[in-house]
């Protein structure tokens, strides 16, 4: 069974990869990707079952915050039942999403500003070194250069410092990081394709 999984993964991966370079294999690539999307959809159901299992276990063991788990399961089942009965395009279901899910996630996003401010304040306490100083000084410079001050803009900040930091240092650094990440991703992918890394079956 282990060998079968390995062969499936290697052949599937190589065919999809080949589809990017050889046009005649494009159709086969799309077919395999469609199969993968169907399998991922089935995995979604398994994932939801896992979510139910985790929260049911919390309720059963009366763990801290198990009342929230109960609310989650009730919300999950009611949304699922109404979603099946009425369909995802029903105005009621859409209203439910727009008035509960979206505002809840937006409020978490609003919390981010506070978390980031708190994290920045604690940075020097956590790691007092040169790079932390550079990080905070850069963040402060960018904020000063972006802010509208009572006496107007500080010319050199908005016309030179901010564009230079943004377009030279930050962009160059981000490109360097992304190239490093791309190389890491490439090698991770190759290891999976040749079967050296097997994230399936615990390999």
């Amino acid at each position: 069974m282990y060998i079968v999984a390995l062969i499936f993964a290697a052949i599937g991966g190589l065919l999809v990869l080949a589809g990017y370079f050889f046009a005649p294999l494009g159709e086969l690539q799309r077919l395999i990707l469609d199969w993968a999307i169907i399998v991922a959809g089935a995995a979604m159901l398994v994932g939801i079952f896992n979510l139910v299992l985790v929260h049911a276990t919390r309720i059963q063991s009366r763990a801290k915050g198990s009342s929230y788990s109960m609310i989650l399961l009730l919300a999950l089942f009611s949304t699922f039942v109404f979603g099946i009965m009425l369909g995802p395009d029903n105005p009621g279901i859409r209203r439910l999403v727009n008035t509960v899910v979206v505002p809840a996630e937006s409020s978490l996003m609003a919390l981010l500003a506070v978390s980031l401010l708190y994290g920045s304040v604690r940075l020097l306490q956590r790691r007092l070194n040169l790079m932390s100083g550079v990080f905070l000084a850069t963040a402060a410079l960018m904020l000063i250069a972006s802010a509208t001050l009572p006496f107007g803009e500080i010319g050199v900040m908005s016309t030179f410092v901010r564009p230079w930091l943004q377009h030279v240092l930050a962009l160059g650094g981000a490109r360097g990081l992304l190239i490093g990440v791309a190389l890491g991703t490439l090698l991770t992918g190759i290891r999976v394709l040749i079967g050296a890394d097997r994230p399936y079956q615990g390999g």
Partner: protein
Amino acid sequence: MTGWVGLGALLFSTVLLIAIARLRRPSAARFRPISGLTSLYRAFGHSVEGGTRLIIALGGPSLLSRSAGPALAGLRLLKEIAQRGTGSDLPPLAVSGEPSLALLSQDTLHAGYRAIGAPEFFQPVTGRVAGLTPFSSSAATMPMISDEQASVAALIGHFGVESALLAEAAERSNVVLIGATDDPAAQAVLYATSTDPLVGEELFAAPAYFAGGAMPLASLTVQDVLRWIIIAVVLLGAALKLLQII
């Protein structure tokens, strides 16, 4: 033209990876110190000795997306952690924001139990789906950091700026947080908020630092070779542009 260059780079990388893995002795490898990985290694050891839990969050990219690479690196690290940490009083907990990733993490944890000869102790709920969107996943992971008797949390995978919420939860619970992601904006966030960040490609070095082995070490060497080639090409291109040859 670009396609052929990409194919050439891919074949070159594959051949170089296999050649180095076969020819080079793993014991000859020398690492530069990476403080994030040193902290993770130390904190993991303390968690096993102290009977506390390690939480590893793998983020929420689909395995069909281009952000799957960091998640696969996170799974590789989870494999090493699972094999060493399953004997602890509180075994590692893997949290994902994507169901197929959660299935793979369960498989990996199960393999850890099989490796120590105690597959019957594996609990499927130690490989969890926290939520299906980035913010809901973070919101569900926050109480796990505080309620699961964790002493260390590792974010290894694709995370966005919502990782700041996890960092704050870790800070409140005195949990050591090591953060690594492929997203530059989230890297800036984790630099400011985590106990020790892993920057850029450092996250892909974690398996080699933790376990060694011919293939992960060869992978790091090939990354270095490719990086030098890219540096040379960038410098050459800049020089040619400066001289108005191209």
